[in-house]
C-alpha cells in the first residue's frame, strides 16, 4: 500500500478545518451521514468516560489510478457497510459504480497543525513528520502573513507543497489573482494551484489525485534500529498520555519496551493505533506510518514533542535530527479573583486547575508567586499571547476558577556588573539599577502583509515602537509585505488590534524570535498613595518612560474608584518621580430616597456594592479593582 503523510497549512479562516472535513467525507467511503454518526459516537464516548479525543493525525484510505488527474471519490463508490475503513475494494452494489480496476490503494495520513504563530514550534514538529503539505489560500482574500510564514516553514523542512485556492464558490472569488500572488510571493507556479471549494466539494477529486501523485512517498529507512518522532501528545483522563508518532525507521509493536532518547525514560507500549477518525487499534506501526501510542505515561512532562522514540532493547545510535525545548516568550501572573491573603482556598483551587491543565499542555510553565497587591498566585510562561489567552480561558472554563491576570511581559536578560546573567520574567524581580551592566530584550522579525494604502500608517506605528525597517516585498499590485525588526515587548499586547484597525481588518502579521539586544531600558515603578505596587510596574524604553508612566496613571485614575480621601498616583524610575496624577476624594455615597417600597431593591444594590468591593485588592487603605491591573497593558499611541 502507498503511504502519503501531509499537513494542511493555512492562514486562519482560509478553510483548513473545512477542507480537512471534506477530505474525510470524501475518502474511506464514509458517508456524510456516517461521518455525523461517528462524531456522535465519539461525543458519547467523551461524555461517558470523560475523555477527550483529540485526533491530531487521521488516517484514511483512498483509491487512485496513478497518473490520473481526477479521482473517483470514495463516497461516490459503494462500500460494504460496516467494513469501512476497508483496505480492499468493496463489492459493487446497486446504483453506484465500483472502484476503477486500475486503481491502487493509498493510505493518507493527515497531520493536524496548530494554526497560530504562537505554536510555530509545534507546527514545525508536525511538519517534520510529513513529506508534503497542502497550502490553503482563500480566493477572496489572497496570501496572508501566516500563509507566508507557514509556507516557508514547510519549505525549510523540504516538504512538497500543493497550493490550493479555496472558496471558489463565492461570488467575490478571484482565484487567478490569488494564484498569481502565490507564484509571486512563494515561487510556486500559478498553474500548479488547484481550485477548490471545501464547502461545495468542487475540485476535491483533483486534489486527491494530486496528493497521491505529487507528494513523495515516505523516505526509506536509514538505520536498522527503530526510530519514531513524537510530533504531538495529549492527556486523556482514561489512558494517560497519548503520543502521536511518525515512524521513520524500523517498527514499533504493542508490548515492546520503548525509550525516549531525549529524556532517557522507558515505557511499555500498551496500545498502538490510528484514528480513522474512530480510534482503531493496530498491532504494529512500520516505516512511513503515522499513529498514536499509549504506554502508561502519567504526565505530559515525561513527553517532549520532538523527541525520538527507540527500542530499549536495541536503541538507535542517534536520535532523529533537531530537538529544541519550546521557549516561553510571554509571561504574566494569574491570581485567583477573590484571593485576598485571608482566603487561601481560592489559591488552592487555582493550583489544582493549573496542575491539571499542565497535564494537557506541557508548553506553559508556572511557578508560585506572592504579590503584596494580589496575594498568592502563579507566574506563568506562554509561547505567545494567544497561548496565554487560551490557557486563561481553559482555566476559567474547565477549572472553574476566576482569574485576574497581570500585564504580560517578555523575558529580559539582565547582565550584572559581576558578569552574572539573569532571566527576568517579572519587572518586580529586577534588582536595583546600580548592579545593572546591560538589560537586553527579545527582538523579533516581524512580517506585515498589508494593502498598499496603509503602508504609511503602519510604518509610523512600527517607528513609534522602535521597529527597524528591513525591507519590503511586493505581493501583488495592491499588496506588500513589510519586514521589521522590533522588540517583542512592543507588539505583545495591542499591536495586532492596532494593525487591524489601521488596515480596516486587511492587515496580517507573523513574527519569530531573532535574539536579545540591549537598549536603554528602564523599570518604571507605580506608587499608589505612596505605596509601590509591583504588579503595576513595567519595563520600557527610557525615552518612552514618562509617556508610558503618565498614560498608565491616567488609566489608573479612571479605574480606581474615588475613596473618601485623596489618592496620589506616581510613576517613578529608581525613586525619581517622573509623572503624577491625583484621584480626588469621593464626596458622597448616599441614596437620596429610601422609603418602604425601596427596601428590597436598595438592599440588593448595597449588597452588590459590597460584592464589587470584594473583587478589589486592598493596597494599604486603597481598594484597587482588578481592571486596574490590566491598565498597564494599554500602551496608548
Amino acid at each position, binding site marked *: 500500500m502507498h503511504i502519503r503523510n501531509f499537513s494542511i497549512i493555512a492562514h486562519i479562516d482560509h478553510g483548513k478545518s473545512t477542507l480537512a472535513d471534506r477530505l474525510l467525507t470524501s475518502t474511506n467511503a464514509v458517508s456524510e451521514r456516517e461521518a455525523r454518526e461517528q462524531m456522535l459516537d465519539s461525543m458519547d464516548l467523551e461524555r461517558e468516560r470523560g475523555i477527550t479525543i483529540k485526533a491530531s493525525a487521521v488516517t484514511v484510505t483512498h483509491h487512485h489510478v496513478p497518473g490520473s488527474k481526477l479521482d473517483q471519490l470514495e463516497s461516490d463508490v459503494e462500500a460494504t457497510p460496516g467494513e469501512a475503513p476497508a483496505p480492499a475494494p468493496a463489492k459493487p452494489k446497486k446504483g453506484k459504480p465500483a472502484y476503477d480496476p486500475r486503481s491502487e490503494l493509498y493510505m493518507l495520513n493527515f497531520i493536524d497543525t496548530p494554526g497560530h504563530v504562537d505554536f510555530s514550534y509545534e507546527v514545525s514538529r508536525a511538519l517534520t513528520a510529513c513529506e508534503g503539505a497542502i497550502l490553503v489560500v482563500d480566493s477572496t482574500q489572497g496570501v496572508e502573513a501566516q500563509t507566508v510564514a507557514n509556507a516557508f516553514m514547510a519549505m525549510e523542512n523540504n516538504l512538497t507543497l500543493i497550493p490550493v485556492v479555496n472558496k471558489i464558490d463565492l461570488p467575490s472569488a478571484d482565484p487567478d489573482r490569488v494564484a498569481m500572488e502565490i507564484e509571486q510571493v512563494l515561487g510556486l507556479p500559478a498553474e500548479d494551484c488547484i481550485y477548490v471549494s471545501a464547502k461545495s466539494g468542487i475540485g476535491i477529486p483533483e486534489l486527491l489525485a494530486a496528493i497521491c501523485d505529487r507528494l513523495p512517498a515516505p523516505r526509506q529507512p536509514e538505520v536498522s534500529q527503530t526510530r519514531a518522532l513524537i510530533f504531538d501528545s495529549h492527556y486523556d483522563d482514561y489512558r494517560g498520555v497519548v503520543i502521536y508518532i511518525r515512524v521513520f525507521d524500523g517498527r514499533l509493536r504493542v508490548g515492546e519496551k520503548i525509550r525516549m532518547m531525549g529524556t532517557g525514560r522507558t515505557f511499555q507500549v500498551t496500545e498502538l493505533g490510528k484514528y480513522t477518525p474512530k480510534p482503531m487499534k493496530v498491532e504494529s506501526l512500520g516505516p512511513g506510518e503515522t499513529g498514536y501510542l499509549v504506554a502508561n505515561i502519567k504526565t505530559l512532562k515525561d513527553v517532549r514533542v520532538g523527541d525520538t522514540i527507540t527500542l530499549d532493547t536495541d536503541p538507535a545510535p542517534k536520535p532523529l535530527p533537531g530537538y529544541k525545548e519550546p521557549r516561553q516568550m510571554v509571561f504574566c501572573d494569574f491570581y485567583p479573583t477573590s484571593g485576598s491573603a485571608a482566603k487561601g482556598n481560592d489559591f488552592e483551587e487555582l493550583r489544582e486547575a493549573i496542575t491539571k491543565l499542565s497535564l494537557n499542555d506541557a508548553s506553559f510553565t508556572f511557578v508560585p508567586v506572592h504579590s503584596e497587591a494580589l496575594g498568592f498566585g502563579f507566574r506563568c510562561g506562554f509561547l505567545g499571547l494567544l497561548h496565554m489567552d487560551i490557557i486563561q480561558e481553559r482555566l476559567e472554563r474547565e477549572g472553574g476558577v476566576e482569574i485576574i491576570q497581570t500585564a504580560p511581559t517578555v523575558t529580559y536578560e539582565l547582565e550584572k556588573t559581576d558578569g552574572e546573567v539573569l532571566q527576568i520574567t517579572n519587572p518586580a524581580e529586577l534588582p536595583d539599577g546600580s548592579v545593572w551592566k546591560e538589560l537586553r530584550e527579545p527582538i523579533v522579525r516581524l512580517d506585515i502583509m498589508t494593502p498598499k494604502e496603509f503602508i504609511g500608517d503602519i510604518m509610523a506605528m512600527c517607528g513609534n515602537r522602535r521597529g527597524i525597517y528591513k525591507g519590503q516585498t511586493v505581493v501583488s499590485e495592491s499588496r506588500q509585505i513589510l519586514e521589521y525588526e522590533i522588540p517583542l515587548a512592543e507588539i505583545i499586547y495591542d499591536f495586532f488590534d492596532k494593525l487591524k484597525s489601521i488596515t480596516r481588518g486587511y492587515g496580517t502579521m507573523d513574527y519569530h524570535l531573532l535574539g536579545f539586544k540591549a537598549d536603554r531600558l528602564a523599570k518604571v515603578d507605580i506608587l499608589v498613595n505612596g505605596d509601590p505596587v509591583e504588579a503595576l510596574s513595567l519595563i520600557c524604553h527610557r525615552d518612552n518612560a514618562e509617556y508610558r508612566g503618565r498614560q498608565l496613571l491616567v488609566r489608573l485614575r479612571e479605574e480606581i474608584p474615588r475613596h473618601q480621601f485623596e489618592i496620589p498616583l506616581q510613576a517613578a524610575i529608581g525613586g525619581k518621580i517622573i509623572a503624577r496624577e491625583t484621584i480626588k476624594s469621593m464626596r458622597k455615597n448616599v441614596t*437620596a*430616597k429610601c422609603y*418602604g*417600597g425601596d*427596601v*428590597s431593591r436598595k438592599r440588593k444594590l448595597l449588597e452588590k456594592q*459590597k460584592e464589587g468591593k470584594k473583587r478589589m485588592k486592598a493596597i494599604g487603605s486603597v481598594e484597587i479593582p482588578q481592571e486596574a491591573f490590566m491598565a498597564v497593558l494599554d500602551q496608548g499611541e
Partner: protein
Amino acid sequence: MHQTTAITVGGQSRPATSEDGLSALSTPVRSLYAHVPFCFHKCHYCDFYSFVDSQDRQPAFTDALISEIRTLARHARRASPGSARPPLDTVFVGGGTPSLLRPDLWHRLLAALNEAFDLSAPGLEFTVECNPETVTPELIATLRAGGVNRVSMGAQSFNTTHLKTLERWHDPENVPRALEIAAAGGIPRRSIDLIFAIPGQSLTDWETDLARGLSLCTPAGRGIGRSGGLEGSGGVEHISCYALTYEPNTAMTRRLARGEFAAAPDDLEARMYERTVELCAERGFGRYEVSNFAQPGAESRHNLAYWRQQQWLAAGPSASAHVAGWRWKNVPRLTDWMQGVERSGGYAPAADVEPPDPRRALAERLMMGVRIAEGLPGHEILAAAESLGARDTLRREAERQERKGLLRVSGGRWTLTDRGFLFADGVAAELMSVLQR
C-alpha cells in the same frame, strides 16, 4: 416587568398574593400606605408607578382599593383582638398624584377607610400627597372631613427653568397658593418636597430655591398645627430635599445617556447637600433622616415607621407591604391589580415576595435605621446579630466605621456623624456585609 412571584405550597406552585403575607399577621399593625397611580403628566425623573389615565378608570380603581382596604382591615382585626375597627397611627396616601382623584371618589374612599379602621388615635398622622395644581378648597374640605391632617406638596423647585428640565408641570406660584388653601381648609400639618442637583443648577440656584421653600415655614415657636408663616398662612413644618437620582428606565436617565445634559458633579452635589443641612438648621428644621428636615415634633411618623422597620399594610397597585417579616409588592399594572383584587375578594397579586428571614431582616434594619438621626438601638441590633452568630463581627465593623469618623457607636445608639450622612450607603453596605454568607 413585574412578574408575580410563584409560591410553592404542598408541592403545588401558584402565583403569590398578598394573602400569603397577611395570613402571617399576628401582632397589631399601625400603619397603612395606599397608592393612587394617576398623574396628569409623567415627570421625567419619576420612577413611581404612575400614568396618565385616558380612560377614566378612577371609579373602578376606587372600588378595588376599597375592597382591598376592607380585606386588610379584616386581617388587622384578627391581630388586634378586642377592637371592632383596628386602630391606625399613620396613613399615607401616595402616588402618583392622589389629589387628582375626584372629590366624590375621595369621599367614598375616606368613608370606607373610616369604616374599616379606627382613625381616632391621638396623634394620628394621615398624609395625602398633593400636586400644587390640583389642590382646591373642595378637595381639601373632603380630605379634612375624612380625617386627613397632613399634606405633602410636590414643589420640587421654584425655578421654572429647572422645573422644565425635570419635565415637571406646574406653576411654582401655585405652591404657596395650594399650601394656603390647605391651611385655610384646616389641614394643620404641611410639608413640601424639593429636588436639588438638577442639571444646570448652580449652588446659588439651589440656595435660592431652598430659601424660598424655607420662607414658607411655620414661624418657630408657633408649634405644630398652627397656621401662619411668612407667606400668608400656608406655612410648612417639614421639608424633604432630595438629590436628583437617575433611576433606571426613566426619561431623565435616557436623556442623560443621550448626552442631552451632564449630571451635577459629585462635589457640587455634596456641597449642595451640606448647604441644605446648614440652611435648614438655621431655620429650625433639623435633619431627622438623610433627606428629611422638620421642626421639632413635626417628623413624619409614617416614614419613621419604614426606617424603624415597623409593620405596615399596603393597598393599591405597586404598593409594598411589610407584615410579620414578609415583604412584598402588589403588582403594579392597574388592570392586573384590579382583576386580581376583584377575583380574590380583596387580595392583590404579589411580586417580589420575600418570606421572613432573620438575616435579611437585620440587614434591612441596619440599612434603613442608619439613615435616621436617632440611629440604631445598638444593644437590640447586637442581640439580633448574636442569634446569627455575627455579634462580634458586627460590633467590630461598627467600631471601624466609628474610627473612620462616620458613625458614633457610644451611648447605646449608633448614629451617623455629619460626615457619615454623606456616606450612609457605604456605612450601611459595610455593616450589612458582615451578615453575608
